[in-house]
Each structure stands twice: as structure tokens, then as C-alpha cells.
């Protein structure tokens, strides 16, 4: 139920922001389409902790801020390597996941791919195969560069479900 209320308010905010018309007619159209979307997603049973992780929102935002700083550093590094200031030494490494539930795996693999200079190319049950552009990047990832800042709360609700 909590999920549906949160999805409904998010959709309504999205409608108001994207339409930009605030007369009663347009708002009632918005309400109707939000209700229709909620009914469809209820029928499809697609709203759960995995598709709409509200239990994570606080720690996820903190994680994204740290991650964007890392992405900035990685961008500078890759740009230097493209120009030729630093050497290009491709590496292939296997990194264990910091958490074992599906949602954390997806967030982790996506963060690795989002960071320029490293890309996940294969998912194993307990680890991810990562291609990095440099030795330094590979060592940093193996030492837990991204895993250290990973939100610790990620597994809670998944364990509760099981």
C-alpha cells in the first residue's frame, strides 16, 4: 500500500511538472490517468520493493552524491587517457558483489558501468566481470572503491520478504 501511495504521488507530481497547465480540467485528466496507471500496474503486479525501492531512497541519494563525485574523477582520468597523457592498459577483473540480493547487484553493476573507465560485461551468481581501461582503476575497484560507499541498508527488506 505504501508503494502505491508513493507511486501515485510521484506520477501526479510528474504530470503537473510536465503539463504546466493548472486548470481543473487538465488536473482531472491527470488524476484519471494516474488512477488508470495504478490500476494497470496493480494488475501486472509490478510495484514492489524491487521496482520501487522506497526503503532505500535516503541512502540511495547519499550514494548518488558520492557516486557522481567518483564519476567526475573517472571522467577526468579517461579524458587524460584518450588524449594520451596516461597510458591505456585494459584489464579484465572479477569483483565480488558487496551485497547478495538482486537489487544491490543491479545497482552495483550499473554504477560500475556508469563510471567511465570501467564496464561490467558479465554477471555471475556471486561476482561481476569488469573491463577497466587502466591498472589503477582495476586495483581501486578490487580494493573496494565503489563497494565501500555502497548503501548498507540495501538487503533489509529483501530479507524480510524471504
Amino acid at each position, binding site marked *: 500500500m505504501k508503494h502505491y501511495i508513493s507511486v501515485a504521488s510521484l506520477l501526479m507530481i510528474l504530470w503537473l*511538472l*510536465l503539463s504546466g497547465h493548472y486548470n481543473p480540467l487538465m488536473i482531472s485528466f491527470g488524476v484519471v490517468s494516474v488512477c488508470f496507471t495504478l490500476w494497470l500496474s496493480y494488475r501486472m503486479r509490478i510495484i514492489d520493493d524491487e521496482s520501487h525501492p522506497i526503503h532505500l531512497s535516503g541512502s540511495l541519494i547519499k550514494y548518488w552524491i558520492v557516486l557522481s563525485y567518483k564519476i567526475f574523477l573517472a571522467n577526468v582520468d579517461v579524458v587524460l587517457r584518450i*588524449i*594520451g597523457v596516461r597510458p591505456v592498459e*585494459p584489464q579484465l577483473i572479477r569483483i565480488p558483489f558487496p551485497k547478495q540480493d538482486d537489487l544491490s547487484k543491479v545497482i552495483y*553493476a550499473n554504477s560500475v*558501468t556508469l563510471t567511465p573507465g570501467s*564496464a561490467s560485461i*558479465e554477471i555471475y551468481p556471486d561476482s561481476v566481470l569488469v573491463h577497466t581501461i587502466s591498472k589503477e582503476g582495476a586495483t581501486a575497484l578490487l580494493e573496494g572503491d565503489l563497494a565501500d560507499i555502497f548503501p548498507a541498508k540495501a538487503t533489509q527488506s529483501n530479507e524480510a520478504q524471504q
Partner: protein
Amino acid sequence: MILDWLSYTLITLGALLSVIGGIGLHRMPDFYCRLHAVGVTDTLCSFLILFGLSFQAGFSLATVKLFLIFAFLLFTSPTASFSLSHSAWKWGLTPIGVREDAPSMKIKVREES
């Protein structure tokens, strides 16, 4: 006035990063490294350009839309590059500098050549 120049600077920087990403696309030795070069245009370049454009738009709904574009880019671009690299890996494209028996992956870090 200051905002204008700030936005010009940001957009120019973003365009420069985009050009660098294009150069990297041609300079990098193999497919997987090219993926990293494109990662620059996916993240910092698009962020700088959208941020600069939002200064032009000011506090309006257009800024919200620019932010939404950025958020969607953040979610879709890693998915796209993962599906590219994953299918390349599945079809047996071995990265440069990694041993031929790589798919069995006994190694952690490549051998010194």
C-alpha cells in the same frame, strides 16, 4: 549576464568533452576500450550541456524537463552499454591484452606482455 557566461562556459566544456569522446572512439585499441571513451559523453558531457542549458532556462518547467532528460540518461546509458559489452562478450570477442582462454576466467588480472 554572469549566468549567461557561466552557461556558455559549461556548454562549451560539454561540447569539448563530446569531441574528446569522439576522438577516443577512434583512438582506442579495441571495442571494450571504445565503450569507456563513449562513457565520457554519456556522463559528464551530457551533464555539463544540460546544466548549462538549464541556466539559460532559469527557474522554469524547462529546467525540470532538462533534469528529467538527465535522469533518464543516467538510467538508460549503463543498460545500453552493458547490453553492448555483454553481447560482445557472449559472442566471444576477446578484449585486447587479455589471454585467449579468457571466458573460463581463471585469471584475475592480465599477464604482463
